[in-house]
């Protein structure tokens, strides 16, 4: 991978980092908005109660459980944010496919156009020696492209398996045939090339073939230093 590609990938990486953080902050704003309005409603009820107005206790129970649920949702979002932030700790490392997919599905789940998605859980996890951040970037871009194109009621299924000792095969499939709009775009192609990944698309599925041992990627990203 030449310097030009490294620079492009770094620039895109920063854009990716920014866009994911924007969607996380949007999710947190929603959570705070719900907590704020529910707490405000509790305060309104307290004022009404002081004026002698009566209301069902179940209203209070619903409010408190709603606040507790939103706090848990907030913690979950922050856990994902933390996991994503740590994906830049090591330029290249042993990376779990199952974990990377799970995080990408959660992060894209914050987008308004996200669709229902299922990851095949019976598969044994596979690790690849690659850049966790770039792999996350590639899977995130792939999911976004699929979500934007497939039918609103469609469910996306994701499966993965070891194709041979050197490569891992990820399959994204959906029900109603549709063409992915402008995908892979130039940025995605550059990230895929940097990872040594190959994208092939049909009207009901997308296959991603990822190299298990990214030695050339490792050398490029670490400048050949151990």
């Amino acid at each position, binding site marked *: 991978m030449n310097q030009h590609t490294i620079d492009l990938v770094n620039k895109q990486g920063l854009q990716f980092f920014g866009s994911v953080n924007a969607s996380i*902050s949007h999710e947190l*704003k929603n959570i705070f908005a719900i907590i704020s309005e529910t707490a405000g409603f509790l305060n309104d009820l307290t004022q009404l109660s002081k004026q002698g107005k009566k209301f069902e206790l179940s209203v209070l129970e619903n409010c408190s459980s709603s606040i507790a649920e939103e706090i848990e949702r907030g913690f979950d979002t922050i856990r994902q944010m933390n996991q994503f932030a740590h994906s830049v700790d090591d330029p290249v490392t042993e990376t779990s496919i199952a974990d990377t997919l799970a995080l990408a599905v959660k992060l894209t789940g914050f987008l308004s156009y996200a669709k229902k998605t299922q990851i095949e859980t019976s598969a044994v996890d596979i690790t690849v020696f690659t850049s966790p951040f770039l792999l996350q970037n590639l899977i995130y871009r792939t999911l976004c492209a699929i979500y934007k194109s497939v039918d609103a009621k469609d469910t996306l299924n994701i499966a993965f398996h070891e194709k041979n000792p050197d490569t891992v095969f990820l399959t994204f499939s959906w029900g109603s045939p549709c063409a992915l709009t402008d995908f892979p775009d130039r940025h995605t192609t550059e990230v895929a090339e940097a990872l040594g990944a190959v994208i092939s698309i049909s009207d009901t599925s997308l296959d991603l073939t990822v190299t298990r041992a990214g030695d050339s990627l490792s050398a490029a990203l670490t400048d050949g230093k151990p």
Partner: protein
Amino acid sequence: MTDIEKIHLLMVDDEEKFLNALTERLKLKFFDITPVTNGEDAIKVAKKAQFDVAVVDLQMPGIDGVELLKIMKKSHRFLEIIILSGHATIDVAVECTKLGAFKVLEKPCSFDKLVETITAAYESRMKKKFEKDTDRMKQIQSLAFGQSPLGILRELKKMDDDQK
């Protein structure tokens, strides 16, 4: 406050819990509220009932806030629309204002500010409607002079067609 005096409010947000909490609070402030969780339902209910103000979330699956704003402003000319969003950037605010939004508020927004903005939007709607009604009255009065009854009816029909 009687039902007639209540401000008829349409709330559109795909965050159901937020929608429910806000609806309950606004009900206590004597608003008449219809909550819906998507743009498609908002269009349907707005065809059946008349609303004074709509509070619309920006990012929703299907028809988003900007698209809904365009559609609603086209078919309900006096409806004032407030955009409430977690993505309220300056660009979004400029775009929505150009498209006719009354105001763009950032989520989470203080409840008092929201109530104040809804009330101001309602007053703006009433003012625009009053001005339009006054113009219409003037036009009708001018028609009454020098026209045959059939001529007056023809002109009234033309006026109605122009306002659609």
